[in-house]
């Protein structure tokens, strides 16, 4: 604002615009002749691109950064999936790892098991998850654990659609957890705002989920991540090397660490923390529940789940659905009856789709850790039931 202070004394003044106000004072004051004005610079940097350069750069950028770089990265990266592998709890939102694991599992295992924390094994170690017990009972590795904690049916459908391209012509166990149907909120059919599990696997625009209230920017970010591998890769790098923090924040929080050192091409993604827990649901102090189960027509989760079943069947997969377990001992009599009715309705619907279905029977009270998670012995009992299915019997 002291620009005018440079005139007329300062010969350095480059772009002086003497004003010509015809006030009584200035009219009588001789004004210096206006200096020729320099043309205003385009901008304060050298980035001025032509159309051809912008188009060329955009094409090059999209091809190299958006698609080639993730492909090269994928080729160079090793994700360890030894033993009875299940994706670590901390990496449950890293769909890059899941995509790699699903591809490998589809190639190496005859049976893939998809589900939420019940299949993943919330209260057991890696050797005592449902897929691990089946493998042990069959004496060889036939089932891969593709479950992720919190993976409700709406998210599972999108997960398979976007990242499960390798799941074709396989035998697939799908876990349907009726727990999500015990109220409109968890079923995602309510209108009250909530933050569901795996929001990055929800349909962002269609079908519309009223309780999911993300901003347009968040929704577009998810759509980009689902369609441009580079953004999935970025999220993977942030999760595996930067404690799931924003990169900028991480750099400020770790001022003297070289961010490049955090990037690793060997990822040990196996869950190692979880151990067997013996605490039953009543020891945890969980009280009786009187859930009013939604009907199948009301349920968003069920609608998406049947959509997933149809898609998997259409992709030449043999599908068997495991319905439950739900802890009947913590339900009121009415609620338990309603649950059993829902199980039968689900079975009837799946029969119509031509899909095998197994209803997990009511297990003894002391094998439940909570409303739906069994303890180690519960998994043993469920595994015995699953081994009777046509799907597993058909595996050599």
């Amino acid at each position, binding site marked *: 604002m*002291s620009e005018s202070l440079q005139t007329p004394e300062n010969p350095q003044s480059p772009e002086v615009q003497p004003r010509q106000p015809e006030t009584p004072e200035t009219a009588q004051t001789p004004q210096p002749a206006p200096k020729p004005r320099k043309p205003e610079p385009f901008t304060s940097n050298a*980035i001025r691109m032509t159309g051809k350069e912008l188009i060329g750069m955009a094409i090059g950028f999209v091809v190299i950064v958006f698609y080639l770089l993730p492909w090269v990265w994928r080729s160079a990266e090793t994700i360890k999936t030894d033993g009875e592998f299940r994706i670590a709890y901390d990496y449950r939102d890293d769909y890059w790892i899941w995509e790699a694991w699903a591809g490998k599992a589809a190639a190496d295992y005859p049976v893939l098991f998809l589900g939420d924390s019940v299949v993943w094994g919330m209260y057991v170690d890696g050797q005592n998850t449902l897929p691990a017990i089946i493998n042990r009972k069959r004496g060889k590795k036939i089932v891969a654990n593709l479950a992720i904690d919190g993976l409700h049916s709406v998210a599972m459908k999108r997960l398979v659609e976007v990242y499960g391209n390798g799941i074709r012509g396989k035998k697939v166990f799908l876990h349907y957890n009726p727990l999500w149907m015990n109220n409109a909120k968890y079923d995602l059919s309510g209108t009250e705002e909530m933050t569901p599990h795996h929001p990055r696997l929800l349909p962002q625009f269609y079908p519309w989920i009223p309780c999911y209230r993300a901003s*347009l920017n968040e929704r577009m970010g998810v759509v980009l991540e689902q369609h441009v591998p580079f953004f999935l890769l970025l999220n993977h790098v942030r999760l595996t090397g930067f404690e799931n923090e924003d990169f900028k924040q991480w750099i400020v929080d770790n001022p003297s660490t070289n961010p490049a050192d955090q990037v690793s091409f060997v990822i040990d993604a196996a869950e190692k923390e979880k151990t067997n827990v013996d605490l039953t649901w009543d020891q945890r102090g969980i009280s009786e529940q009187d859930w009013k189960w939604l009907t199948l027509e009301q349920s968003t989760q069920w609608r998406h789940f049947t959509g997933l079943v149809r898609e998997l069947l259409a992709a030449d997969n043999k599908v068997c659905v495991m319905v439950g377990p739900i802890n009947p001992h913590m339900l009121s009599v009415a609620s338990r009856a309603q649950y059993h009715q829902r199980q039968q309705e689900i079975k009837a619907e799946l029969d119509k789709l031509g899909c095998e279905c197994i209803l997990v029977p009511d297990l003894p009270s002391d094998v439940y850790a909570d409303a739906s998670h069994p303890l180690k012995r519960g998994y043993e009992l469920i595994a015995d039931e699953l081994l009777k299915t046509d799907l597993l019997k058909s595996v050599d």
Partner: protein
Amino acid sequence: MLFHTWEFVFFFLVTMAGYVLLKKTKWWTLWLLAASYFFYGWWNPLFLILIVYSTAVDYFVGLRLGVSPRRKMWLVFSLINNLFLLGFFKYAGFFCENVRVLFAWLHVPLDIPDPNIILPVGISFFTFQSMSYSIDVYYGNLDIEKSFIRFAAFVALFPQLVAGPIERAKALLPQMRTEPEITARDVTDGISMFLVGLFKKVALADFFAIYADKIYDDPGSYGSLALLFGTYAFAWQIYCDFSGYTDMARGIARIMGIRLMLNFNNPYTAVDLGDFWRRWHISLSSWFRDYVYIPLGGSRGGKLYLIYINVFITMVVSGFWHGAAWTFIIWGALNAIGRIVTMPIDHTDFYRNRIPKIVKQLFIFHFICVTWVFFRATSVSDALMILERIFKGIGGEPEIPVVMFVIAGLMWVYQLAFNSRLKTLLESRPLRIAALSVAMLICLVLASSAHKQFIYFQF
């Protein structure tokens, strides 16, 4: 609706489609006005009442200035109206707070409640733009705008509505009077400007902000080095934030065939304070020069003390424009004192020819950083404490993010190179493409899911 959001992308695509379709008809200004009001109303539809009122008053004053014998009265009416709007919405809280302090000091038992008025986004910008129209028409520097739609579109033009540049009616209204001409070069220039602005905001400003906020939120916990680097971070944050916004604004306008003025010209390469103010927020600096400094007498008359007084008043008013707090007033006063003290030295042969340019640039940058302490600190006492701790050399773990300051250093070197003979090299095709590609890649990597507001929106 921030420029770097999807809301804006969709808004702009729709606006642009209508704009291109209508630009050969008389409806294009109406379309532009409707889009601008929609853009502004997105923050809060109630703000629209304010901008429509302010626009209507100045439009009416403009018409009266053409026919009324009492022209001065109409000009004064316009000025009072605009200053009242600013004063009420921006300074009422500050005024009440200070009166409360004064009453307490005088032991007057009168409690003045806090007015709790919401500051409408961009009010400082559009009132100044509108006010300059009345002044220019009064002095005969500008033709009266007969069309309300055109005048309203000038005041509310969405690319520069909420954070400038404060465009003069003389430059912008003529562009509204003719059918917009959009060349391929306009579009590519606009995209180039926008991408650079995007990089400055998303990759740099928001990055520097994290460190600056961390230090300034609890300055008493940090030693000299951390406070010094926190101030450096803020210096680059505010530059990248504000110049990034105006780069984007200019780019968007350019795509629409509208030219907005350059608002920042690498200010941290300035060699003296006058040079700095010719490079920093140029549209505001020239506004204050033309409508405050020169009317005060400027540098006419030759009496040095009068020039100094004019400089001081102009700078302090400028500080007050930035925010209703004593820290901003002191910021303005410090700049004034710096300018007054260095003005005679700048012109000496010793300063101009003997002192290496880089030393002068470093000196000016550091002086500006001292003033930024007041600009950023939450109170005067905090600012004084920060300066005291910096100069006392208090130890402590500085926690300086090396990567961040390497980026700041590289940007400064780029700007120095751009202002030197190396400019031709920077303009070569491979370097331009490489620079923009790297910038976009950094932008994508560093882009956070959370979008920070632009700093200057609060003004």
